[in-house]
């Protein structure tokens, strides 16, 4: 049988490996089992504070429009029906079905019991030390349908 060779460069394909959602879900579930619920929130908090530090800074400087831009890019990339409503003091994101959860379900990957924290904790961490706060107003465990709210903290 002849030797086969495949050569690819970074520009040959878009960067979109959805199975990474499965690995993240497995990681969260592993943390939950090994160290408990608080460890999941602590890990996601630390990750978000470090990785999203530039987004937090943009939120401080530019307000909620920075968050809206970020999440529009995220959902445009991942797909799914999403509605944004924004004023100076509030941003509301209504997601009909979380693209990550939809991928996990479609591939039969387990959805971590605390997968919702990838929104709830991460959003709170992004807002930490800014004039804004975040809350998850609704979340459906089966589909990841959610209502995420970011709002200006009243003194």
């Amino acid at each position, binding site marked *: 049988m002849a030797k086969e060779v495949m050569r690819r460069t970074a520009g040959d394909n878009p960067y979109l490996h959805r199975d990474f959602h499965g690995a*993240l879900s497995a990681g969260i579930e592993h943390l939950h089992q090994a160290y408990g619920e608080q460890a999941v929130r602590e890990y996601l908090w*630390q990750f978000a504070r470090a990785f999203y530090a530039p987004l937090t800074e943009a939120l401080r400087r530019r307000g909620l429009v920075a968050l809206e831009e970020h999440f529009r890019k995220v959902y445009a990339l991942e797909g799914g029906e999403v509605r944004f409503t924004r004023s100076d003091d509030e941003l509301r994101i209504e997601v009909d079905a979380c693209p990550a959860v939809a991928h996990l379900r479609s591939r039969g990957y387990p959805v971590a019991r605390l997968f919702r924290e990838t929104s709830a904790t991460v959003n709170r961490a992004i807002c930490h030390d800014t004039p804004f706060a975040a809350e998850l107003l609704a979340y459906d465990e089966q589909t990841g349908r959610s209502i995420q709210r970011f709002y200006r903290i009243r003194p």
Partner: protein
Amino acid sequence: MIPCTEFIPAYSELFKYLEARGGREAVERFWEHLADRFLDNLRSAVQEHGLRGCWLYWSHTLSEEAADFTMELDEDAGVFRITMHHCPSMGRLLELDHVEPYHDYCRHCDVLYRRVLEPLGYRYALDLSRCREARCELTVTTGNVAP
């Protein structure tokens, strides 16, 4: 939601968190857990197709990850090889100037794939000597061929 394009930094930070909680052993345990629970697609591809299963598995994943690589399959010689010219994962981590990659990030590829392939009778070698340049070389051979 953390998009899949931001998974790699999340993964790297998870390794750091695990190490802070339980030392390097905790990180190793997680990698083993992931190999056992999450790599069934590689395991079943190799069980069904032999060395070609590696080709099928990585041609899919590396394409979705937009990797810069050369992949070779020589079934007569019993050799499968990936020469990674620029790893999309380590490459992304190295590009971040506000987050430091987990110090042993690349070794998860050694633990995960070795744990799947060696029990199936294959030999596995991963040269990570240039991983800080986002380069590596992965070789899988049939049991009688040295990698």
